[in-house]
Each structure stands twice: as structure tokens, then as C-alpha cells.
């Protein structure tokens, strides 16, 4: 069964460092997402990406964040200068384009710990 894969599974970084989280969405999917979940809190939307551009982003997704689909298979989330409050589980998701439908398929997540 096709799946979304994420690397790394866990990354520990120092505050102020740049971090890149990588995702390989399901191959025939057209929409790509990043969500995050701070421990014990809700799953929060960060950004959606379609047709090689951001289609929606949340208030969380400020200038410190960027996304890229560099080679047609990978989908990356970059945090330029990490803060303590960026510590969270980051989930990549993708979906096919079905009118009025189409569930998200999530990866296993990348745990980011900022010290």
C-alpha cells in the first residue's frame, strides 16, 4: 500500500539553527501539507501546496518557514532559525484531487526537539 514517508524520525537541534524536514508524498497525489502537533495539543495546519506553490498557510507559517518540492518527489519543510516553541511533531500529508472529497494520508511524523 502506498504511503507517505518522512525523514528524519527525530531531530534534535540547537535554538537558532536551520532544520529541514523531508517528506515523500504518495506518488500520484497532487496536494501536499505540513501539520504539526505540540505535545498534548491539537493537530495544527501549517501549509498546503499545490501545483508548485503554496495554496494556503496558517498564521503559524511565518517567514521562518518555507516549503519546497525540489525534484518532483520530495516535499520539504525548512525552519530557518528554530525557536524553543518549534519543538513538536511535524506531519506531512498528501491527497489526491477528488471533487468534494479526498482524505489526507499522513506520514509517521518527524519529531523536532529544539534545545
Amino acid at each position, binding site marked *: 500500500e502506498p504511503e507517505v514517508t518522512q525523514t528524519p524520525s527525530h531531530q534534535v537541534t540547537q535554538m537558532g539553527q536551520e532544520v529541514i524536514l523531508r517528506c515523500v508524498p504518495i506518488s500520484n497525489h497532487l496536494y501536499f501539507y505540513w501539520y504539526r502537533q505540540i505535545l498534548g495539543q491539537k493537530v495544527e495546519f501549517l501549509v498546503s501546496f499545490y501545483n508548485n506553490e503554496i*495554496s494556503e498557510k496558517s498564521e503559524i507559517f511565518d517567514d521562518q518557514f518555507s516549503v519546497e518540492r525540489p525534484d518532483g518527489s520530495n516535499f520539504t519543510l525548512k525552519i530557518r532559525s528554530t525557536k524553543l516553541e518549534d519543538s513538536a511533531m511535524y506531519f506531512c500529508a498528501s491527497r489526491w484531487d477528488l471533487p468534494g472529497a479526498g482524505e489526507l494520508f*499522513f506520514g509517521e511524523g518527524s519529531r523536532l526537539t529544539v534545545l
Partner: protein
Amino acid sequence: DQQVKQNSPSLSVQEGRISILNCDYTNSMFDYFLWYKKYPAEGPTFLISISSIKDKNEDGRFTVFLNKSAKHLSLHIVPSQPGDSAVYFCAARRVTGNQFYFGTGTSLTVIP
């Protein structure tokens, strides 16, 4: 602004009984609703969905009910099994958007 709400953070049910998880939403533009199950340290896994043109969708032991006038949906699991113990998230999407809005989750414990 919490557009999707799950007011019960936790629920315990005996094995074999029915589990009912509830979800409320505020945005009348939502037209597609989903339930996800999440185990610790794993990504959410899709369970079942329902379009706003329906009021019920069933898949095996899982049934989702949608009450549009009350802006309420529920997930019924019958019979509940210990392996169903997980956190359940409801999610919603509006007709013109790409974003899926998630609730805060309900932790279900099925007691053997």
C-alpha cells in the same frame, strides 16, 4: 479560532460495547468531514469520511453520523475492541479550501 471541537478529551468503554465519539463544528461552509485514529508516535490514520450530502456513512464497525442543522457529527464503533484504544480526531474541510481543520482529539480506552 477553534472551528472543530471535540469536547470530551477522553472516553472509556468496555470491550464489546458501543463507543460514541462526538464532534461539533462552527463553520457552515464545511462540506466534508473525516475521522482519524492516532496511536502515540505515529501519524493519524484515516478511518471514515462523510460528505455533507449524506447523514450517515458506514464501514464495518465504524459509522459516522452527520447532523448539519446541529453542526454535529459522531463516530460510532460497534463492537469496541481493545485495539481501538487510540486518540480519535475529527476533521473538516470547506468546499472552496484545501485546509483540513482538526479537532483536539478524544482519547478512547477500550477496557478488556
